[in-house]
């Protein structure tokens, strides 16, 4: 008794033993895997939340028919192959898609996975009153046919050239019909037990889930790959902050994986310098950009709210917009604001690689003398010697607004200085983000109303196909008082040629043709300086050096290949 007390006292003074000794390969041979999600998941049912943290935690258990790999390519997951027009999976009229399940799939309770489960998942999300967060992905699905237990045919209301919305990616996994049968519509919320421990096909199953706090998982005995996963149990810890999470992986080694380390480059680099772990990044489509307002904005404080369709005398001149873009040093911006978590972007569609245009690559180089020349040639000169260029009595004085955020204010100051050097005067406004990004039509400081000349924000295309995203710059997407300030074409750009190309995109199904059209549309936006892309913002996480197999993914769940993760041999 006494000796044990002393032993306990001594062990108190010892550092925590890091990792148990490595055994042979096989399911569960690597013991415990510790994940730190500082924004803790609140449910394991991604259909009821939509939050990234919840989607990622659920991806240990629930799987879709196809996943997206780190390059944004579709990989068949529960499906045998990706349906296409070539293999007959997509009907010629583009009104249906046929998914075939891998044979022999089992849920973690041992029952068989069938096409009825696929059909049920659609019913579950579309049931009125369910509050399903992924409804938009299923919107055009009118029926699901199940000719045999392994085949599900999704029928669409209208031709769908890109029918990979439902069941592709971590947001729309397949649910077990038997478990959720009584949870349709308004009953969905009360099914706490099922929402906190869904039965899935993934490498792990839930043992205990405490919302907002922690979760424990264990290897799924029915998982389809016999030797996977290498880890027997997973602890997913929440709480604290990004700093706590980064420290626990990179500095003290208490955890194996830390998710979403939104930290300043200096903080993150100092942590990584300890050498215990690696910082990993992945990029998808989130681009920090400036939008330029081509319309004359109504004067501040005027009571007659409404758009003035008058083109802005300076901004409507492409030379001015071009000069503003040329004088930015995007490399410096990335270095100061994002470090490894960002890279210079000259495109508004930066990925997947096939969709990224190469036509604008030169934008990274700052060219202040060139910008001055562009302005002078267009007739913008400083005649009165006040340092600000003008033409026909109109001076280049702009209001530049963005949300309150340390990095954005740094960028504002940098831009103001560079623009001063080319003879443009800038007034900076920063607006609280809950006001700037609010959809309230009575709020004159919102992104949509754009009562300034320049504004900076970030936005992303949802998934790999940019059609919906690019249609945000069509003429009918201009927010105005008449449509209640709805729409994403905040600069008020309108080009019939662009709209015609968009129509062609919505009728094209061959992947290469779609990519080519998307690149052309991207080039029209960027080369007309409708938007000025700045930084492609990535996801940042960190893993311990002793953890192998991590393939960071920004298109799908970061844990998409957790079945392949293993402990490094020592």
């Amino acid at each position: 008794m006494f000796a044990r007390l002393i032993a306990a006292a001594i062990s108190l003074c010892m550092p925590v033993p890091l990792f148990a000794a490595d055994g042979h390969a096989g399911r569960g041979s690597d013991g415990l895997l510790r994940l730190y999600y500082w924004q803790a998941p609140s449910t394991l049912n991604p259909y009821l939340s939509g939050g990234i943290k919840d989607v990622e935690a659920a991806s240990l258990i629930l799987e879709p028919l196809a996943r997206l790999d780190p390059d944004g390519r579709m990989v068949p997951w529960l499906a045998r192959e990706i349906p296409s027009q070539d293999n007959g999976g997509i009907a010629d009229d583009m009104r249906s898609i046929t998914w075939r399940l891998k044979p022999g799939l089992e849920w973690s309770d041992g029952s068989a996975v069938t096409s009825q489960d696929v059909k049920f998942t659609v019913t579950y999300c579309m049931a009125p009153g369910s509050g399903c967060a992924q409804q938009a992905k299923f919107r055009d699905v009118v029926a699901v046919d199940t000719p045999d237990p392994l085949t599900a045919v999704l029928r669409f209301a209208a031709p769908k050239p890109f029918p990979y919305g439902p069941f592709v990616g971590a947001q729309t996994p397949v649910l077990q019909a038997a478990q959720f049968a009584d949870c349709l519509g308004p009953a969905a919320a009360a099914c706490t037990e099922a929402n906190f421990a869904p039965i899935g096909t993934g490498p792990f199953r839930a043992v205990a889930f405490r919302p907002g706090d922690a979760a424990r998982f264990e290897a799924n005995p029915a998982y389809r790959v016999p030797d996977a996963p290498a880890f027997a149990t997973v602890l997913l810890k929440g709480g604290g902050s990004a700093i706590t999470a980064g420290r626990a992986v990179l500095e003290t080694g208490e955890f194996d994986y830390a998710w979403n380390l939104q930290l300043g480059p200096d903080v993150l680099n100092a942590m990584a310098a300890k050498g215990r772990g690696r910082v990993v990044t992945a990029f998808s489509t989130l681009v920090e950009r400036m939008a330029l307002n081509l319309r004359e904005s109504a004067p501040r404080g005027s009571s007659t709210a409404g758009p003035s369709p008058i083109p802005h005398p300076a901004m409507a001149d492409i030379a001015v917009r071009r000069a503003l873009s040329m004088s930015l040093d995007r490399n410096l911006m990335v270095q100061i604001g994002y470090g490894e978590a960002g890279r210079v972007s000259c495109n508004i569609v930066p990925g997947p690689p096939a969709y990224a245009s190469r036509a604008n690559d030169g934008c990274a180089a700052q060219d202040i003398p060139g910008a001055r020349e562009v302005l002078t040639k267009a007739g913008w000169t400083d005649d009165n010697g006040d340092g600000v260029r003008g033409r026909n009595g109109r001076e280049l004085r702009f209001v530049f607004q963005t949300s309150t955020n340390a990095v954005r204010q740094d960028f504002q100051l940098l831009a103001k200085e560079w623009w001063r050097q080319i003879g443009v005067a800038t007034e900076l406004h920063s607006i609280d983000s809950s006001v700037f990004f609010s959809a309230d039509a009575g709020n004159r400081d919102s992104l949509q109303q754009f009562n300034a000349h320049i504004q900076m924000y970030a936005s992303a295309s949802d998934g790999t196909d940019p059609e919906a995203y690019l249609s945000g710059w069509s003429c009918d997407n201009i927010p105005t008082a008449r449509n209640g300030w709805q729409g994403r074409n905040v600069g008020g750009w309108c080009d019939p040629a662009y709209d015609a190309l968009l129509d062609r995109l919505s009728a094209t199904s061959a992947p290469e043709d779609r990519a080519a059209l998307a690149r052309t549309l991207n080039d029209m936006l960027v080369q007309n300086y409708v938007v000025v892309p700045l930084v492609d913002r990535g996801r940042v996480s960190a893993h311990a050096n002793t953890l192998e197999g991590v393939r960071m993914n920004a298109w799908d769940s970061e844990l998409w290949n957790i079945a392949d993760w293993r402990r490094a041999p020592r």
Partner: protein
Amino acid sequence: MRASALRRLAMTLPTLLVISALIFALLELAPGDPMAQLPDSIPAEVRADMAAALGLDQSGPVRYALWLRQMLVVEPSVALDRLLGTDLAEGAPRILSWQTRAPVMSLIAQRLPQTLAVVGLAYLIGTLAAVALGVWSAARQGTALDRAGTAVAAMGYGLPPYFTAAVLIYVFAIWLGWVPTVYDTTHRVTGWDSAAVQLRQIILPVAVLSLQTTAQITRYTRAAMLEALGQNYIRTARAKGLTQRRVLLRHALRNSWVATLTVIALGAPQVFAGAIITEQIFGVNGIGQLLIQSLHVGDLPVVQTVTMLIAVLIVLANLAADLLIARIDPRPDHG
């Protein structure tokens, strides 16, 4: 005496009702949208549908009435059903969190053990240390020891927990590597080894919090003791030849208890409220973390219910302090 206690108890009910209405109104008026946290790829009409599924399409007064009914009728009957195995609640809608869709009471039940272990232990240690330090420094007024006690109190007041926590983590967890930086809430104590792990992970948060408690209470104890030590009965006790120990503990401390105990009793509900900053830093996901997290995402049912329970505890603690003081006050009762 009994009549006045009952009268006071009766007064608490309208007080709590007013508090609940105030809490609801404040949260209703505060900005914040439970849908604001969703990724921007989720379109506006889907958000509206999700809000409707949460019951947000109802008007404020309707939701308040519903919540009040759930709080006063449904949740107590669910608790009774649990205890007695009856079926009073009969599947009536419970208070559900908007974010997790789980009953708020079960969230609180999950969080309470962590909070009680860390914050409760810290309050206990902090209080004991404060009383000892207060008595001691009053007895040795003006000496180096008294000044050291004052310094500790000033430090506890002056250093915010986010600073002390960061320093302690840096020294003991990162530099020396003796203790973990993160509190594992799923850890179970099953034997000596796991008890050692628990002890190691609880030391830092408890140290940070008890420093705060000590600082707050020790000043009251010292002041009350000094006042008591200046009284004539102390001189009488000394003249009788009683030992210093007996004078301090039996005569001075007993008379200064009234002030000290009031402070301790009024501070006790904070144990249940958790410690927002310290819980956040160490990842002790207790009630404080639940409250702040729910505020961030606009999860009003959780915020309302947790704040209300804290209000109830504070009102009850006030009542208990009053009754307790009436009991222990050695002075004759003139009321």
